[in-house]
């Protein structure tokens, strides 16, 4: 399911006095099995770009090809395409509408016209993938869910369509740290176990550093960087110019390295950095 974007431009309210250009000549490619972070300040065009991936937006100029299918093609089966590229929206309140969890999750498969038995199997599987217990939550009222449970229901509702690519649009916004960690764990598992291509949109550097291999940085509708995360986090000044900060722990590691501590500034994972700092502390104590 590779996604190929070439020369994409988009303006909101085109042809009105309120016209505003949000995407400028965007080129990018996402391969099968990738786990890509899209990061940028608010209003930078992340969501508009990502909604081109499942043909919710059709390019005004340029080409978006998903699995070789041009989304602007009049004969393209966009409904089928949207089942392949699942999209979880920023705010679950816009997505959830049924009265119970199970009913909402089964919405996608029912739209695909599957027989009831298959629908139930899909719902069961999707709920297991996001860690919602079937018996406890199947008939639970949507309004009785916590923020984190709502997100998981929203993700399950998309997973039930069996997507090959999953676009996650700022899905941890407004969650407490624990709920956030749980959601991130679900995403990691989907990528490693089900080999689903993940496109993770966020404005949190920490989350993107934790999850993604490749990072696309968007600034005012243009791609500022599109590289492996190690190459991007090596340019903290440039990131700061855009208004993004390095992940906290990584900034600390670089700082300590510059002050002469024995810490590799290219470490990316939190645990590795923590261990390295602990090692240094330990060495110091021994010396004293």
């Amino acid at each position, binding site marked *: 399911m590779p996604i190929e974007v070439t020369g994409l431009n988009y303006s*909101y309210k085109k042809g009105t*006095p309120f016209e505003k250009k949000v995407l400028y000549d965007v080129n990018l490619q996402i391969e099968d099995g990738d786990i890509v972070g899209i990061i940028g300040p608010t209003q930078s065009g992340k969501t508009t770009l990502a909604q081109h991936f499942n043909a919710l937006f059709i390019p005004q100029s340029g080409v978006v090809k998903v699995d070789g299918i041009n989304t602007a093609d009049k004969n393209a089966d966009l409904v089928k395409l*949207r089942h392949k590229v699942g999209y979880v929206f920023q705010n679950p309140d*816009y997505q959830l509408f049924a009265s119970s969890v199970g009913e909402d999750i089964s919405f996608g498969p029912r739209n695909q016209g599957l027989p009831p038995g298959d629908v139930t199997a899909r719902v069961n599987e999707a709920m297991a993938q996001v860690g919602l217990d079937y018996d406890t939550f199947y008939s639970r009222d949507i309004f009785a869910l916590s923020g984190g449970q709502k997100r998981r229901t929203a993700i399950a509702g998309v997973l039930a369509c069996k997507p090959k690519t999953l676009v996650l649009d700022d899905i941890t916004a407004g969650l407490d740290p624990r709920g956030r960690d749980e959601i991130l764990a679900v995403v990691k598992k989907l990528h490693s176990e089900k080999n689903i291509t993940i496109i993770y949109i966020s404005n949190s550097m920490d989350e993107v550093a934790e999850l993604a291999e490749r990072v696309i940085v968007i600034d005012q509708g243009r791609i500022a960087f599109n590289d492996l995360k190690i190459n991007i986090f090596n340019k903290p000044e440039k990131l700061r110019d855009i208004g993004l900060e390095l992940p906290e722990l990584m900034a600390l590691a670089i700082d300590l390295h510059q002050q002469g501590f024995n810490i590799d500034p290219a470490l990316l994972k939190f645990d590795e950095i923590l261990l390295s700092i602990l090692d240094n502390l330990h060495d110091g104590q021994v010396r004293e």
Partner: protein
Amino acid sequence: MELTKNITLGVYLPGNTAVHRMDPRTKIIASTILIVILLLINSYQAYGYFLIFISVIISSAGIPPGYALRGLKPMLPVLVLMWVFQLFLHSSPDAEIIFSWWIFSATDAGLHLGNIITLRVLFLFTVTTILTLTTSIVSLTDGLESLLSPLKRIGLPTQELVMTMVIALRFVLILAEELDKIVKAQMARGVAFDRGNFIQKTRKIFPVFLPLFINAFRRAEDLIVAMESRSYTGGRGRTKMKTLHMGRVDIVCILIMLLFTGLMIFTIFA
């Protein structure tokens, strides 16, 4: 896909033209007079004059004509339906049948009535759109409130009424934005709103309106809290930061309106 693109009602287009600078009371009264005129005239000649007058206002307010017309686009199906109904269902004894099919027959009187009513709705909408495009929400509120203030004496809560009306107007765009998000979330899960027959299409609407209503109520609650936390307690004892006053533009506008109204009265009786 953008649902909000064609919505012009309740949108304010900032500018610094004479129409923008006018006192909101003048604009509201002028719009009301224009609406009354629209309801009274019924000759094509009069509508012709009206069209010229409206075009002059649109261009002097710096509104791109294409944008002024854009808001009419979503209304077209309703207008066509209305026109067809008038055409076939109007009957008068001395009307001449110009076209007939099965049990339906169209008369010249029906055609004329259909045309007039369609024109009327088109212009009504355009007049209101011009008013909201050139008047900010705040000055619209102030203007209406000031105009309705005599009614306070008979115990009408005018300030509250106006506030409600203006909020409703403002919510048109907000709800359209929400609708856009909900529709997209459902398209993402495989709903094809443009497929199927009439009944199938209608059925797809229900899952859209449920979250829309719920979110609207939630928004309304938030708005109440936001207003109360800024000490809004209704109209009583409320003062204005910017007081309204009429200037030279308003006098010019009143003169022009008088002339135009005179012309229209002339066409009605001529």
